[in-house]
């Protein structure tokens, strides 16, 4: 069964800290991994990773994929209270390419 597992499930840090969120996957015929940020409502897209070892960056957020070890990390440096959210990773499996299998999410709380 295809699955995506995230850790930790919950993380509380102080503003300014750096955090690393983990996502491991077991997906047949892996093609890509996606990261989303969910605040109060709709998840919003952060990154899509397809190639191993190539870092994607957007401001203070960066992500990298390791296809050999089947995981991805999402780093956030100099965290701000606005980074508080649930971070979701997902991957499309071989069967039913038009769906994403989501992890259970990491709830990140940034305290001032």
């Amino acid at each position, binding site marked *: 069964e295809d699955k995506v597992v995230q850790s930790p499930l919950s993380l509380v840090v102080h503003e300014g800290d750096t955090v690393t969120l983990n996502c491991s996957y077991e997906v047949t015929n892996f*093609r*890509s991994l*996606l990261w*989303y940020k*969910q605040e109060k*409502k*709709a*998840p*919003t*897209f952060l990154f*899509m990773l397809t190639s191993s070892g190539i870092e994607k960056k957007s401001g203070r957020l960066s992500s990298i994929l390791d296809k050999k070890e089947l995981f991805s990390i999402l780093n956030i440096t100099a965290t701000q209270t606005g980074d508080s959210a*649930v971070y*979701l990773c*997902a991957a*499309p499996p071989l069967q*039913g*390419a*038009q*769906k*994403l*299998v*989501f992890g*259970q*999410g990491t*709830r990140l709380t940034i305290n001032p």
Partner: protein
Amino acid sequence: DTAVSQTPKYLVTQMGNDKSIKCEQNLGHDTMYWYKQDSKKFLKIMFSYNNKELIINETVPNRFSPKSPDKAHLNLHINSLELGDSAVYFCASSKVVGGELFFGEGSRLTVL
């Protein structure tokens, strides 16, 4: 302009009732989805439509019936509502298979 819009945003109803949630996207995407997010924030695919045709039906009870009158609309009708149907239902669309999902803001269904 809202890219993916769902109505209603909140729905409170009694067990046994029938209800519908509507979704529209103005992104010109061919593929639309319904996802269910439970209280633990787990997002699970329910249905996927590609160009008005049902592509994915993920072991969802047949009390749930999606309908796609055209590729910009995907509605969800639920018969004989049960307590366990309480969740947030997200509509989404994507341009390419396995690509970035654009989510609506969700419809929070509470069954009493």
